[in-house]
C-alpha cells in the first residue's frame, strides 16, 4: 500500500475545502490524490490491492453534523444521513415497516461485521468486484484507461449483461442501490461549488468509453444524505437476491420490486435489477409492460423478457439472462402476495 496522509475534518464544509486543495481539474474521485474515507470496507481493501492509490485520506467519521448519523421518517419520505451504518438502517423499525425493500436489500448484503462498518453513502459508491479490476497485473479500462479489458475474453461468469460497453462489462455489485433506483431516491451532495440534489438514477454513469468515470461526483463532493420518497408502493416491496451460496455473497441476479395493486391489477410498479448490470439498474421496459395489467405469471414473464431484451452475454455469463428473468418473475409474484 502506498503511504498516505491522514486527516480528520470536523465539518462537511471543512472536508470539502480540504479536498479542494488537491485533485484539480476533471479527475474522478476514485483517482484523486485526496479521497474521503468513511466505513473503509471498500477503500481499505482496494488500497491494499494497489487499486486505490490516494496520497491523502480525509476521515468523514469525525464530521460533527448530527444529521449525517440520523434516520428521519416523515409521512412522505425516509431520509438517511450518509454516515448511518448499513446495519443500523437494516434494523430500523420505521424502515422495515414502511419500506421492507430498503431493509431487505441491506440485510442481505455483506456480513454483520461489514454492515456495522459500512456507511450508506459509501455503500452506494462501492466499486466493482471484477477480478480483473482487482488484480493490477491485468489490463483494465476502469483502472487504467485505454489499457483494454481482460474480462471480455476472460472468465466472465460474474460479469454484467446489461449496460455493458466495448470497454467494460464489470458488474455493479451493490444491493441497496437497486432499492434506491427502484424507489426514485435522491441524494444530497455538497461540494466546493455548493449543495445540490441529484436523482439517484443520475448518480452512476454507464461505462461507455470511460469506465474509469463511475459517478457524477466531483473529487471534492460528498454525499450527505439519501432520501427515499414514501409512495403507495413502498409498503408492498421486497428484495430477492440469488447467490452461489445462501448468504454472504454478491448477487448473481437480484430484483428490487415495489408494487401498488388494485385487486390483481398493477396500478404502479417499480423494478431494480442487481448482479446483472454495470450500474444500478432500473427496468423501465418491464415496468411499462406491467402497467395496468393483471399480475399473473404470464404477465410477470412478459415483463422479465422485456427487462432483458437488450442483454448482451459473454462466454460464461449467458446464464444470467434466464436466471435474471426467473428472479424477477419470482420477486414480482412474491411481492404481489405480500400481506400488507
Amino acid at each position: 500500500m502506498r503511504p498516505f496522509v491522514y486527516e480528520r475534518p470536523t465539518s462537511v464544509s471543512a472536508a470539502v475545502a480540504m479536498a479542494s486543495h488537491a485533485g484539480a481539474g476533471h479527475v474522478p474521485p476514485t483517482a484523486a490524490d485526496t479521497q474521503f474515507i468513511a466505513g473503509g470496507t471498500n477503500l481499505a481493501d482496494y488500497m491494499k490491492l494497489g487499486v486505490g492509490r490516494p496520497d491523502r485520506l480525509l476521515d468523514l467519521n469525525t464530521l460533527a453534523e448530527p444529521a449525517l448519523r440520523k434516520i428521519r421518517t416523515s409521512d412522505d419520505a425516509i431520509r438517511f444521513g450518509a454516515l448511518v451504518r448499513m446495519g443500523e438502517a437494516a434494523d430500523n423499525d420505521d424502515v422495515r415497516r414502511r419500506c421492507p425493500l430498503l431493509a431487505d436489500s441491506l440485510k442481505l448484503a455483506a456480513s454483520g461485521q461489514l454492515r456495522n462498518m459500512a456507511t450508506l453513502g459509501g455503500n452506494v459508491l462501492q466499486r466493482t468486484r471484477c477480478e480483473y479490476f482487482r488484480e493490477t497485473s491485468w489490463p483494465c479500462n476502469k483502472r487504467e484507461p485505454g489499457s483494454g479489458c481482460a474480462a471480455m475474453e476472460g472468465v466472465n461468469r460474474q460479469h454484467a449483461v446489461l449496460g455493458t460497453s466495448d470497454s467494460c462489462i464489470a458488474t455493479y455489485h451493490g444491493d441497496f442501490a437497486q432499492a434506491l433506483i427502484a424507489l426514485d431516491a435522491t441524494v444530497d451532495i455538497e461540494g466546493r461549488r455548493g449543495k445540490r440534489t441529484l436523482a439517484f438514477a443520475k448518480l452512476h454513469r454507464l461505462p461507455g468509453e470511460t469506465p474509469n468515470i463511475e459517478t457524477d461526483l466531483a473529487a471534492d463532493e460528498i454525499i450527505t444524505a439519501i432520501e427515499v420518497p414514501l409512495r403507495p408502493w413502498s409498503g408492498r416491496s421486497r428484495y430477492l437476491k440469488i447467490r452461489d451460496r445462501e448468504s454472504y455473497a454478491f448477487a448473481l441476479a437480484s430484483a428490487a420490486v415495489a408494487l401498488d395493486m388494485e385487486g390483481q391489477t398493477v396500478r404502479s410498479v417499480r423494478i431494480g435489477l442487481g448482479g446483472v448490470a454495470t450500474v444500478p439498474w432500473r427496468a423501465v421496459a418491464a415496468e411499462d409492460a406491467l402497467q395496468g395489467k393483471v399480475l399473473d405469471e404470464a404477465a410477470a414473464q412478459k415483463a422479465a423478457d422485456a427487462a432483458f431484451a437488450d442483454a448482451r452475454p459473454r462466454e460464461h455469463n449467458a446464464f444470467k439472462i434466464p436466471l435474471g428473468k426467473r428472479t424477477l418473475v419470482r420477486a414480482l409474484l412474491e411481492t404481489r402476495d405480500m400481506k400488507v
Partner: protein
Amino acid sequence: MSDAKISSGLSRRMFMTASVSAAAAMPLATSPTRAAQPASAKPAQPRDLSAVSMRINKQSYNLALDNRTSLLDALRDHVGLTGTKKGCDHGQCGACTVLVDGKRVLSCLSFAVMNQGREITTVEGLASAGGELHPVQQAFVDHDAFQCGYCTPGQIMSAIGCINEGRAGSEDDIREYMSGNLCRCAAYPNIVAAIVQARDEIRRA
C-alpha cells in the same frame, strides 16, 4: 502503555513488542498529532507516524503508527495481542473480528488511526481476571466447535456481536448472521450449537 501492564508477568515476546511501541510513542508526547497540528506547521508527510490512543481490553494504549497500519496489525504487531487472527486480510473471512465500542467489526479493513479514542475488545479480553471463560468461549469448548482453531477467535467475537445484536434466535438466524465468519474445517454445526448454548446462558444471566 501502562508500566503496570508491562511488569505484570507478560511473555518476553509481548514485553518486547510492548516496549517497542512504548518507545515509538514517546517522542509524540511532546509533538502534537497532525490532526491537531496548527496551520503554520510543516505539512504532514505520508510516512509520518500518527499518534493513536485506544482502550484495548480495558487498558489504555498510546501508539505511534504508520497510517497504513490496520487495526489488526496494530493489535498483533504493536500491542502483542496475537489472539486476533489474520486470515484473508481483505474482509472476506471474518478471522480478524473484534468489538469496537461493543460492535463486531473486521479489524483488517479498519485503519488503526481511524480508531482514535475507541474501546477495543479482543478475544484476550473476554475471560474474567480469575481466568473464568466467557460463556461463548466455554460453549465453544463444550461443543468442540473447532478443529484447527484458526477461525475461532473471530467466530467467538462475532458470536458475541451476534448475540448482543439479538440475532441469535433460530439456528437459521445464527447461520445467516454468522455468515461472515468462514471455517475451512467446516465446524459449522458445532459452532451453531455452541452459540445456542451461550445465547441461553447469557439470556439467563
